[in-house]
């Protein structure tokens, strides 16, 4: 795993809640992504997956750890130096209704990115580039003069993707890019993302909770629980041979749109809720809900180790 395109090492993001309470949203996360690869990041709400994405792109200041993109550590760069790297990494947000400024035309929403990075050139050149980008994502050049409210959810998400693409990024973080969209539209966006990846050699960090979509999209998948990665493997391995009891429960909990599978499935229903990340359990974070938990799990933090070739899990019994 040497010289990966993206290398995240010991990343931590703590939020100080006051009264000496510290929320450890991302707690010592490490992974790497090769160029042109898609890493899926899954977990329940509150597990820290979105915070991890936002910290990597430096929307949040990391508490500790290193973030290296193409060999350069961006974790400690100052704001002004960071700008050069911003064009390498871009983000597609979850809610296409909230992430576009309603008072700007599409031309300005996408053009703003060009302006900031000085890629626009002349006014006519800026317009031409925006129109070219719009056509690349399956919209029309005429759409440039319209406002966000004139578009449907799927089209808005295409505009969000256009804005991210405008600065020729190499790495894109997609934070739940389809969860606000209708089922019949989701496939359009997923196909577009895969298409763009093939054409432009993009590297993706794909954050989602829809496990069947993540499996389809990703080469490798990492599962997060309470701020830590508990399992990571190639997506086929993870789905066919999950090692961590949490992954097993998560996989069995997803209803599959096939009555034959559903009726014969042995569902592992976890008891209770996600513990608070302010006071996580001692030892293994999952032990309070784990059907296999023993005394050892309360005493010792399980190591994140290779349990099978290229398959990592943090469980004493994996």
């Amino acid at each position, binding site marked *: 795993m040497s010289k990966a395109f993206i290398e995240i090492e010991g990343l931590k993001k703590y939020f100080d809640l006051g009264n000496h309470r510290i929320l450890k949203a991302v707690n010592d996360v490490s992974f790497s992504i090769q160029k042109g690869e898609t890493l899926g990041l899954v977990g329940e709400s509150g597990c820290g997956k979105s915070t991890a994405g936002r910290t990597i792109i430096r929307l949040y200041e990391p508490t500790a750890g290193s973030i290296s993109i193409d060999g350069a550590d961006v974790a400690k760069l100052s704001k002004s130096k960071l700008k050069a790297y911003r064009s390498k990494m871009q983000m597609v947000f979850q809610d296409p209704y909230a992430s576009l400024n309603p008072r700007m035309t599409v031309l300005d929403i996408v053009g703003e990115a060009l302006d900031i990075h000085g890629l626009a050139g002349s006014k006519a050149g800026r317009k031409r580039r925006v129109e070219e980008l719009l056509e690349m994502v399956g919209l029309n050049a005429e759409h440039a003069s319209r406002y966000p409210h004139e578009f449907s959810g799927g089209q808005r998400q295409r505009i969000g993707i256009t804005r991210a693409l405008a600065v020729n990024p190499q790495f894109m973080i997609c934070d739940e890019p389809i969860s606000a969209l209708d089922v*019949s*539209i*989701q*496939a359009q966006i997923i196909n577009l993302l895969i298409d763009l990846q093939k054409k432009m050699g993009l590297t993706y960090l794909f954050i989602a909770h829809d496990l069947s979509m993540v*499996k389809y999209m990703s080469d490798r998948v990492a599962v997060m629980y309470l701020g830590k990665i508990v399992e990571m493997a190639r997506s086929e391995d993870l789905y066919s041979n999950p090692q961590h009891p949490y992954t097993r429960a998560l996989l069995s909990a997803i209803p599959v749109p096939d009555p034959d599978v*559903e009726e014969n499935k042995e569902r592992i229903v976890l008891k209770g809720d996600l513990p608070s990340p302010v006071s996580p359990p001692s030892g293994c974070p999952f032990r309070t809900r784990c059907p296999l938990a023993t005394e050892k799990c309360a005493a010792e933090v399980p190591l994140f180790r290779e349990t099978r070739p290229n398959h990592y899990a943090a469980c004493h019994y994996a």
Partner: protein
Amino acid sequence: MKSTQAAKKKLLDVQNLSVSFDVYAGEVQAIRDVSFQIEEGEAVAIVGESGSGKSVTAQTIMRLIQMPPGRIKNGKVLLDGQDLLALSEKEMQKVRGNKIGMIFQDPMTSLNPTMTVGKQIMEGLLQHQKLSANEAKERVIELLRLVGIPNPETRLKQYPHQFSGGMRQRVVIAIALACNPSLLIADEPTTALDVTIQAQILNLMKELQQKMNTSIILITHDLGIVADICDRVIVMYAGQVVETGTKREIFNNPQHPYTKGLLKSLPRLDQAKDEPLIPIFGTPPDLIKPPQGCGFCDRCDEAMRVCETEVPDYTILSDTQSVRCWLQHPYAKQAGSSGSKEASV
């Protein structure tokens, strides 16, 4: 949940229901000529994308549509033979929460933050049943235990903010079940919850349905949930019912191009990455100006000329499956078998 005996009693009969909303831009025809039946003890899913009219259908059954701007243009909603649309508001209040219970999507906003959980469950009980305060309290404890909330005696004195999302949804279910309703309408009951919590709630609903023989209308866009807990499926598109059938008919033998498209646009767990998803192109029509013909016509690969001008009628395919599509018309089948299908695309 198995669909067992054939001759079950019809509980709910929705006939030719049309509801519109008068807004500034014109008349939004939210549902158009919707008919379906629910039998006793069966779980039926209504699926469709946002704006397809599934929630409006549920709210019309409960008479929760605000009028104006809403307007019930036509149709009947018969519950045990009684037309709910003809009842006065006072009579309707005896039905709501008593004969029909409702579970809403978001447990964070459907509970009153200023009332204890026990009081909120008791409210319906005292309204509909002649119980003393003590009897009502006993019943609340029993209900909380039924929906799997530990320490009900202390929990009933707590406020909603002291409960997690999954626990709050259990409270909402307890409220809906308080008076043993014969019909339970669940509008996206697990959309706001995480998958592991969703599994708990779905298990609970299945268990309760078996125990109490309640009919369930489950509104959802998640076909996985449908495959998990429903007996029958109603597919809605652009304000109309386009296909109905048993779960197996819909998943294994869908006949409407929209239903087929919906199933194909979902990735299967065994789908390879180089095998692309097949999306449905385009977007649903604007219901201020609903299409003259079939609502799905613009997005349909197999649309013919007749689809643009005439709304298709239901074609009965089996005792349980019917579909609203011109391709099922005997003439289209003749044309299709003589090989002219390509010409009509």
